């Protein structure tokens, strides 16, 4: 494949402003919003008079935001290719391949560009979610005075949880799987490059939908959106419903893309037992994404219908049941949290061999651990409903299945620990984050054992103990490995090094303050403080203040990271070596940053990337071999 198509001179800036680009997308998005808003009013009259004089046209909120999202996507050019095909044009692979910084603000089918878009986009919304967390802890500094009105506090809590959950489901798959899975399997692209770009822009549009909930009064349900409170709420809950529906679509497509890519586009010689463990993690996560997200979309669709069309899915007074929502939501929700946890496992297992200079111990056991978690996650969801009044016969079964899931999780621990055993460990910044994963996920997992035991769950359900548990597993497990992946792979992605000392400062401050904040929350929960409560008994104030101060310092540690990022990537700009970590993985045999076409020739695999101490690294371009077309 020649480079002619990709290195043609870019048109001048003014020319690029006309046509399908980010600015057009914003304009069409706003236009679409108004079309939806006024269209709904024209269709169903000035106000929907279903429950009474509601004073608000619910349908208009949905149609407005749907119109806005569709307009935004059309403006970026996502309809161009389908329309061209409908008009009879032949299929083509790449639409635009311009160079320059505007690629990152447009529909670009280069998977590496999408990976970097994801990194910054998710980073932005996680920053917003983190700010909401700071606001929560500000409110909880004292039980007596109110910083925010009580209803606003619930909106802040809901926004923090919803934004984090929605964004972090694609937190590792989005940036790093999109960038590196094709490279790791020896391909030049993903199976569906346009869908890949779509998943990113859907997520960005969804983030805007959620942040604008404050203009519609916020939502009082927290991230779980239980009916019938959601049916009763202000129009702000429509933003929440639409956000999660869009995230669900994005998740489904992302998972689908990953699975098809790995199934069909592996290079010669790459058998399943030679696949990097990171790719196995991506597969096990993607299966969950594809199967679980549609359940969420269905549940949210029913909630939207209850709100707009007065259906009775979740309203017991007219024949529905709140249990229906709870079960549907958690049937999605439990695989969802494994969507969050599994990439963390995969990153740890991928990085440990590099920094311990030893092969990954127990490769097949690790793979069965990942797949086992993936499979078992479907059979545990009712542990969120132990005291909800579910059929009593179910509870021992779900107790057993939830306890069982700790067995495949343990495999990851065993393989990681045995990889470290007798290795030669280098304490680089990515390694520090991976080691912190062991500590954090251990505490998170063991607290999960408490929650899986029904008598113990009666003590702790709905309290801050649950909060501490999932923050240890999700933040301690996923976010720490997210940073490990950033420090490990960003030099490869951008071609610039990140400052190691700043990275270590970031790690230690984050680790210390994270543990300081969340370990105390176990005690707070044990002492009886319920979740999502704006006030608490006075005797818990000291502990809450400790947590709040630690949380503020934890937020400050993120500023160290942001400073490092900006400083290293924009000012210092020290070129990164091709293989700074001495990794045997294939992406580190390529230059930094990875060239547009990935490989000169499609590689042929002869082993897995964990042969430390076994044989010399096979070269990507063997000496004497002619460089040529693939």
């Amino acid at each position, binding site marked *: 494949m020649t480079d002619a198509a990709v290195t043609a001179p870019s048109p001048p800036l003014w020319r690029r402003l006309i046509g399908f680009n980010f600015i057009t997308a914003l304009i069409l998005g706003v236009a679409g919003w108004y079309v939806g808003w006024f269209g709904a009013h024209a269709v169903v009259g000035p106000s929907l008079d279903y429950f009474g004089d509601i004073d608000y046209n619910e349908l208009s909120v949905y149609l407005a935001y749907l119109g806005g999202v569709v307009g935004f996507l059309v403006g970026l050019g996502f309809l161009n290719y389908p329309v061209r095909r409908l008009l009879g044009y032949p299929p083509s692979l790449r639409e635009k391949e311009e160079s320059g910084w505007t690629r990152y603000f447009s529909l670009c089918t280069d998977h590496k560009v999408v990976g970097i878009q994801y990194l910054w986009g998710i980073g932005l919304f996680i920053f917003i979610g983190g700010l909401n967390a700071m606001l929560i802890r500000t409110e909880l500094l004292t039980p007596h005075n109110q910083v925010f009105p009580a209803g606003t506090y619930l909106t802040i809590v809901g926004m923090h949880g919803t934004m984090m959950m929605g964004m972090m489901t694609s937190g590792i798959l989005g940036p790093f799987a999109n960038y590196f899975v094709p490279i790791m399997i020896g391909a030049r692209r993903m199976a569906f490059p346009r869908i890949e770009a779509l998943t990113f822009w859907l997520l960005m549009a969804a983030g805007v939908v959620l942040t604008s909930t404050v203009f519609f009064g916020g939502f009082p349900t927290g991230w779980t959106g239980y009916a019938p409170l959601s049916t*009763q709420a202000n129009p702000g809950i429509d933003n929440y419903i639409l956000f999660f529906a869009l995230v669900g679509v994005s998740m489904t497509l992302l998972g689908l893309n990953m699975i098809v890519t790995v199934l069909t586009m592996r290079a010669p010689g790459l058998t399943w037992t030679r696949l990097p463990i990171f790719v196995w993690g991506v597969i096990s996560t993607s299966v969950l994404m594809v199967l679980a997200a549609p359940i969420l979309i269905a549940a949210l669709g029913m909630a939207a219908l209850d709100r707009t069309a007065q259906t009775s899915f979740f309203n017991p007074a007219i024949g529905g049941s709140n249990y229906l929502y709870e079960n549907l939501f958690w049937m999605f929700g439990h695989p969802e949290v494994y969507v969050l946890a599994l990439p963390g496992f995969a990153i740890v297992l991928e990085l440990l061999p590099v920094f311990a200079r030893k092969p990954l111990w127990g490769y097949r056991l690790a793979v069965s651990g990942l797949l086992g978690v993936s499979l078992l996650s479907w059979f545990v969801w009712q542990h969120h409903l132990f005291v909800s009044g579910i059929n009593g016969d179910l509870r021992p079964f779900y107790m057993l299945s939830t306890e069982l899931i700790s067995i495949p999780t343990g495999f990851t621990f065993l393989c990681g620990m045995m990889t*470290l055993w007798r290795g030669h460990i280098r304490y680089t910044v990515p390694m520090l984050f991976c080691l912190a994963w*062991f500590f954090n996920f251990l505490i998170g997992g063991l607290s999960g054992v408490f929650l899986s035991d029904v008598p113990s769950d009666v003590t702790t359900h709905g309290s801050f103990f649950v909060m501490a548990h999932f923050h240890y597993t999700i933040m301690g497990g996923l976010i720490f490995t997210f940073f490990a992946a950033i420090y490990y792979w960003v030099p490869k992605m951008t071609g610039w090094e990140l400052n190691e000392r700043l990275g270590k400062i970031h790690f230690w401050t984050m680790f210390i303050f994270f543990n300081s904040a969340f370990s105390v929350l176990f005690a707070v929960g044990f002492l009886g403080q319920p979740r999502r409560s704006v006030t608490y008994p006075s005797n818990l104030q000291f502990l809450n203040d400790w947590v709040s101060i630690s949380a503020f310092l934890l937020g400050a540690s993120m500023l160290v990271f942001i400073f490092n990022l900006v400083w290293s990537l924009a000012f210092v700009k020290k070129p990164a070596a091709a293989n700074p970590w001495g990794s045997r993985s294939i992406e580190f045999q390529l230059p930094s940053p990875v060239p547009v076409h990935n490989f000169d020739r499609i590689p042929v695999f002869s082993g897995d990337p964990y042969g430390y101490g076994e044989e*010399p690294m096979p070269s990507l371009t063997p000496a004497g071999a002619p460089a040529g077309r693939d």
Partner: protein
Amino acid sequence: MASEPTAATPSGESTNLGLRVVVAWLVLSAIATPLVAIYVGPLIPPGNGSVQAQGQTFSNQVMVGLITPVLCLMAVFFAYGLIRFHMRANETALEGPPIRNDSRIQLLWLVITTTMVLFLAGFGTYELLKDGAGGGQGPDPIALPAHHHTAFPVQVIGQQWEFTYRYPTLGGMESNQLVLPENTLVVLHVTSLDVIHSFWAYQLGVKADANPGTDNVAYVTTKGPLVFHVRCAELCGLWHGYMFDNGFVVSHTAFTHWAARAVALYRSIKPYVNRPPEKGGAPFSLTYLPAPPGRAG
């Protein structure tokens, strides 16, 4: 990059180091577990306010006792490993022994973890089925304490944003204070008039979600006189955080006096309760009486 296997026979050295870790772990666990049991054990919630709370406390204590050795193992392994296997300055070219697997260790790990898990599941099931552990079991409870037929019924009604309590055996008297007699098996029927709430009586060790239109049954056997905190544990709207109260377990004589006063106060409003709408009952009145077991989630 050339690789250099370590000088000593891999398996021999591994076994030696492994034994060191195992011995250190056993010693540390033998010290730590009793210390935890003695000093941390009594602090474990929710305490001994009721028989069910006592059961929960016991479950929690057993689990704390079980996870102590696990934490010790991780602590010993990482404290030892991260120091012993740290790459020294003169080892930067060294790559570790190419050990990819050891099926004995895999089997051992699998057996130990599975045993622990099955034990926990069995233990938890036993504790749960013994007396319900204070949790809500839906309209069709299966974990029934002894003599549950003669349990003292109280209906807990959650609404936005207050709990009220009806006593069917006291003429359907309703009160906004939960008062219970000591040393009695009480059956709580928890329901809601609007959205999902959750009745959490901390010192009694009771937690049961209040679902609209459903009866969620929880058993609790009270012990001595007690003040307990009632909180709402499921987000239910604006004042969820303020939906708390104090409840009381009192002696039988005190309970009789209180009940007499409360029934007298209730008499004035009683004619209006549960009057069907066609007979002039309040249009929203959904005060729910415990009905025969019905459908649930």
